[in-house]
């Protein structure tokens, strides 16, 4: 607070009286406990802490409100912000109630204003003693006992429902009934494998469900979790967070090969790799004892940073940019914290100092950024390389006797003769004769000497050796490169950078973790490395990671998380709508060995998940945006799934898994939007019809049909996709050549199997009479186009 003359006492009393009258203060009863974390902290954080918080350098009037000691201490001005129990003597209360522009808090220039009810909350809090609690997310999730009331148990007997139902009951709300069988099966197919069920699958399930009820549903869920397409659907969820794309970004945006990392993610999810291991391998696979090739590929996670290849750059500057990105991404993805904010200054809201930021930075400042080559099964690269060396030595020995003859031949070559020689020979001749490799000399030998060689035996043995080397090279060329991290043997020194500017190094730092979180300690180790960091992240003592991950899975199923700020669990975070449920899920997740598939099963096999998504009038006023989950939510499909559903409905989909990214048709002229025009050679055969997750992503010129549906370009970590709804999406579905092609294929299905089947392939349900009436007025191609454009086709209901 700025130094201001104290407010006249009279006006404060009027203000207080007015406020009590407004809030009906007399009716407050003792058992309605005000909870600091739920009711007060969000207000302090939003309105006060930017100037009266953790960051001492930006603290106004010496007042700090993020801890109680600071709030109740006498200020330099002689005032006290909070006198517990005595609002009328508390400067904070005076200031928030003030009508004077110069003294009111928050100051008008911030554009922020407390509502009457918020003022009342703060007033009541101070009156009741101004109790603080530690921030919920920085304390370990506690085991929770689900509400035992049998009314809340639900059909699945799933504790999730007990938590949800209890809250609904408290608000006097009834949950919606279960969705229809065909809605259910489409929902769970799209959510688990990202593809709609076929009409046959729908029929089969509906019959099974009619006779065996939820057992049929549970079995279907188990089957889907075993499908290899599960990894494709949920792999994309992870690739968003990993900021994956197939090019270097910035201005040149050259293609890169890092798809083996993408396949690693898909396979790891399909094998249900425990999330703690999944984390360790990606952050520090190279530091594991005797790392496997797969563990090295996993470190591609932090190679998804961009590389600036434009002329005139300082490579160190952009290396450091990548390290900044790695710190920020690690914070966002695994901790749900905006650590990146402390790059230039102490964090404004969360207790993270700039120095602590650079301690985290130090973990990521010690790597080389090489490529790792992967070979298909059956190719043993190490022994092939050895064999190659041996063969070259033999070749060398075999040619040595002909050195002088070779020289003679070379000297005697006329210029025009030389011109006529094949290219490999000419190339070999261009190399200084002392520097020629055995292979080059063998080439020259074949061209110049072998015709009149003395011994046919020698000649054939040289040719044989030469062929062998070529053969080995052919095998070795089948390797695929992928970008990985490799720890440097000698550490780079890390320092704080003043204002985040790498040309202004300050105090040296060692790798370390923020003091507000659990401690890092590894016995017998003085200097920590990335592996220690990775293990620290998945430590059971970590209050954040399990919560952050279960929340981010939850939001896929319901459109938003239990904590709506899915990328910020710090002091500015949204209050969890169901804090006990969040903790229960997090604890259960760790108890289940960090099994993502178990988590998915836990969520989708619940009453809450399987409810109808129809909007209810009675909820509009009380819970319009469905925070309490009385119903399910209609959600527009992610960009890749819009494509996948079109492909599946029209019968064109290639189910092929993994491999190099593909180039489905895109409109002309897209690739000219970046500095360098990149080639987009449309894939042939089934690669034309692969799932969206396999489409090649150039960061500077992202594929438009994915881009308009909010697919991220991999420029920064994306923890929740926007769901925009725009005219360009309409134009894409109506006119894009790919969708026209889908419509062509679907129209054949209409001709063959009828409109009803086509409608089912898109929506998994039968059309109503009026719907059929509209469609049957159209020719098959138009009807197919209509079906692919329906809101319902693009939506998980």
């Amino acid at each position, binding site marked *: 607070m700025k130094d201001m003359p104290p407010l006249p006492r009279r006006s404060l009393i009027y203000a207080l009286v007015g406020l009590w009258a407004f809030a*009906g203060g007399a009716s407050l*009863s003792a058992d309605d406990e005000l909870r600091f974390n*739920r009711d007060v902290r*969000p207000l302090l954080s939003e309105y006060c802490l930017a100037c009266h918080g953790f960051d001492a350098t930006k603290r106004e009037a010496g007042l700090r409100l993020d801890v109680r000691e600071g709030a109740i201490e006498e200020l330099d001005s002689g005032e006290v912000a909070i006198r517990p129990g005595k609002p009328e003597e508390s400067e904070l209360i005076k200031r928030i109630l003030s009508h004077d522009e110069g003294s009111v808090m928050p100051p008008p220039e911030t*554009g922020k204003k407390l509502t009457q*009810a918020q003022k009342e*909350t703060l007033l009541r809090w101070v009156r009741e003693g101004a109790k603080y609690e530690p921030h919920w997310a920085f304390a370990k999730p506690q085991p929770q006992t689900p509400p035992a009331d049998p009314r809340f148990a639900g059909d699945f007997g799933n504790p999730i429902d007990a938590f949800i139902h209890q809250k609904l009951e*408290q608000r006097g709300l009834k949950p919606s009934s279960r969705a229809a069988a065909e809605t259910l099966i489409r929902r769970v197919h799209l959510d688990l494998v990202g593809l709609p069920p076929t009409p046959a699958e729908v029929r089969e399930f509906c019959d099974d469900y009619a006779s065996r009820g939820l057992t049929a549903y549970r079995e279907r869920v188990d089957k889907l979790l075993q499908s290899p397409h599960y990894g494709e659907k949920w792999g994309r969820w992870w690739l968003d967070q990993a900021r994956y794309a197939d090019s270097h970004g910035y201005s040149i*945006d050259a293609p890169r090969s890092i798809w083996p990392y993408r396949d690693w993610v898909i396979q790891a999810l399909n094998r249900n790799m425990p999330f703690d291991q999944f984390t360790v391998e990606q952050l520090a696979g190279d530091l594991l004892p005797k790392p496997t090739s797969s563990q090295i590929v996993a470190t591609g996670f932090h190679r998804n940073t961009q590389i600036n290849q*434009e*002329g*005139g750059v*300082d490579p160190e500057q952009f290396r450091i940019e990548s390290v900044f990105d790695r710190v920020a991404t690690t914070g966002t993805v695994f901790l749900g914290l*905006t650590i990146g904010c402390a790059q230039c200054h102490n964090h404004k809201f969360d207790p993270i100092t700039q120095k602590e930021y650079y301690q985290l930075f130090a973990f990521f400042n010690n790597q080389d950024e090489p490529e790792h080559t992967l070979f298909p099964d059956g190719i043993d690269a190490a022994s092939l390389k050895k064999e190659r060396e041996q063969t070259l030595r033999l070749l060398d020995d075999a040619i040595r006797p002909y050195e002088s003859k070779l020289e003679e031949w070379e000297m005697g070559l006329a210029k025009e003769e030389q011109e006529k020689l094949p290219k490999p020979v000419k190339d070999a001749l261009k190399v200084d004769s002392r520097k020629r490799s055995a292979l080059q000399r063998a080439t020259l030998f074949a061209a110049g000497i072998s015709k009149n060689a003395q011994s046919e035996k020698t000649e054939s043995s040289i040719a044989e050796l030469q062929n062998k080397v070529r053969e080995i090279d052919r095998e070795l060329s089948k390797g695929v490169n992928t970008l990985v991290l490799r720890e440097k043997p000698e550490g780079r020194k890390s320092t704080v950078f003043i204002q985040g500017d790498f040309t202004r190094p300050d105090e040296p730092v060692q790798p370390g973790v923020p003091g507000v979180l659990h401690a890092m300690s590894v016995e017998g180790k003085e200097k920590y490395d990335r592996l220690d960091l990775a293990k620290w992240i998945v430590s059971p003592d970590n209050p954040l990671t399990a919560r952050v991950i279960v929340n981010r899975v939850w939001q896929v199923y319901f459109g938003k998380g239990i904590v709506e*700020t899915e*990328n*910020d669990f*710090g002091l*500015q975070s*949204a209050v969890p709508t169901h804090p006990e449920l969040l903790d229960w899920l997090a604890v259960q997740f760790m108890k289940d060995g960090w099994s993502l598939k178990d988590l998915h099963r836990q969520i989708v096999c619940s009453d809450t998940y399987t409810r109808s998504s*129809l*909007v209810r009038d009675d909820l509009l006023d009380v*819970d319009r*945006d469905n*925070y309490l989950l009385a119903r399910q939510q*209609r959600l527009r499909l992610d960009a890749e799934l819009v494509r996948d559903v079109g492909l599946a409905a029209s019968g064109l989909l290639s189910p092929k898994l993994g491999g190099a990214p593909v180039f489905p048709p895109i*409109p002309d*002229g897209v690739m000219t*939007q*970046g*500095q*360098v*025009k990149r080639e987009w050679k449309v894939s042939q055969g089934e690669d034309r019809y692969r799932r969206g997750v396999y489409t090649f992503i*150039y*960061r*500077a010129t*992202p594929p*438009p049909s994915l881009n308009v*549906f909010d697919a991220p*370009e991999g*420029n*920064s970590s994306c923890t929740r996709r*926007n769901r*925009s*709804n*725009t*005219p*360009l999406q*309409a*134009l894409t579905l*109506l*006119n894009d*050549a790919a969708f026209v092609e889908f419509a062509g294929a679907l129209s054949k299905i209409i001709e063959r199997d009828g409109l009803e089947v086509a409608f089912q392939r898109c929506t998994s349900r039968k059309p109503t009479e009026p719907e059929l009436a509209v*469609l049957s007025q*159209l020719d098959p191609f*138009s009807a197919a*186009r*209509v079906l692919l454009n*329906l*809101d319902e086709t693009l939506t998980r209901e």
Partner: protein
Amino acid sequence: MNNDLRSILDQQLQQQTRRHFFERCGIGVGAVALQQLLAQSGLGAFSETNPLAPKQPHFPPKAKRVIFLFMAGGPSQLDMLDYKPALNKLNGQPIPQSYVEGKRFAFMDSSHRINLLGTRRTFAQYGETGSWVSDLLPHTAKIVDDLTFIRTCKTDLFNHAPAKLFMNAGTGQFGRPSMGAWLTYGLGSECNDLPGFVVLQSGPRGPRGGAILWGSGMLPSTYQGVPLRNKGEPILNLTTPEQVTEEKQIEVIRAVRQLNSMRLEQTGDDEISTRINAYEMAYRMQSSAPDLMDTSDETQETLDLYGIKDPKESTFARNCLLARRLAERGVRFIQLYHTNWDHHGGPTENLEKHLPEISKEIDQPCAGLVKDLQRRGLLEDTIVIWGGEFGRTPMGEVRESTGRNHHIDAFTMWFAGGGFKPGVSYGETDEFGFGPIDQSVHVRDIHATVLHLLGLNHERLSVRSQGLDFRLTGVLPARVVREVLV
């Protein structure tokens, strides 16, 4: 539960709901001015869900739209607009060490040098204001009294792609909205048959950085810039597929609408009405965008004003004309990229040959645009911005021919219309044009000033993401440069 606690919970719920609504729908500023759109669209209740519906600014605006003429690559202010006779006097001498001490430049390890390079151009003073302009810009010279020059623009980053991002998004970091996205988010669009933010390109190649320069960052893609193309379809997928007649297309759109309406009735989900709206607008765009691109209704006199020789040819001049047509139609933010201004002195990018060529490509069209807007009464509420991502050094580079390196300490941009004070030259550079001797104007200040003219307080135009309020001008201080405003 007691009423009081319930009201507290309600309050909180509302707060969260609102927060989510802001994020999702971007109705973050002021009230929604529905009436206008309702009247235009005749769509009644559906319009409520249009995220591009016009919104009230924070205070009465001077300007309604922006045309940003982006000279991609970094034009050489010292050969065009910032006259420094000392450079010619000391040509070839090293710049005093005090200027460059501790500074970093692009190409430090190769062609960067410290010897001053005099300009080869002839400068003269023009207009009542006596502004210095070189012989490269004879048409611009004629309108100097209508322009506002800021000669001490400053940016933070000296490589192209990061600096372009900086000029557009106020940061070199990825994932933030560009200025056009901020404006359509903050103000909506006044045009219901074209996108609110349009990008046009000309020159030998696309701008470095590509789509991220007009990206919407954490805002929904509704607000991202839509490239309008001069060749082929103006907007990707705008054209009805070849095998489909217009009648069939209308049939399809009508049937989609009918079926979507039925589903809306069954589910009650607002998103379906938004989608119905989107199809309406898509359909309108199918005819309005080709209308926009068809310049056959322009007079020869107008074409001449812009220096357009062949109106079908895709040039910067044609894009300037299109910019005026877009402005007339109420598009909020129109950005023209023209490449390539990166005159280092290489064989294809030098000051002798290539700078004059590219200057000629833009000089008359820029002046023509300002004049055309003026005579049509559009300049009053349209801001025209001219400039690149940075300027160029007073020192020459050592390459095959003459060139200058990237320079971020002081460079010239000009502004016109929309509340900028005409005939003003603001900020003065030192004798070599290296740094400001007064009033440095940072990119953040430019952003704050432009937002201000559009009625937006740069500290209040924000979006909540990761628990933080992000702004175009970021967290460091930014000021409205009131000295250059009417």
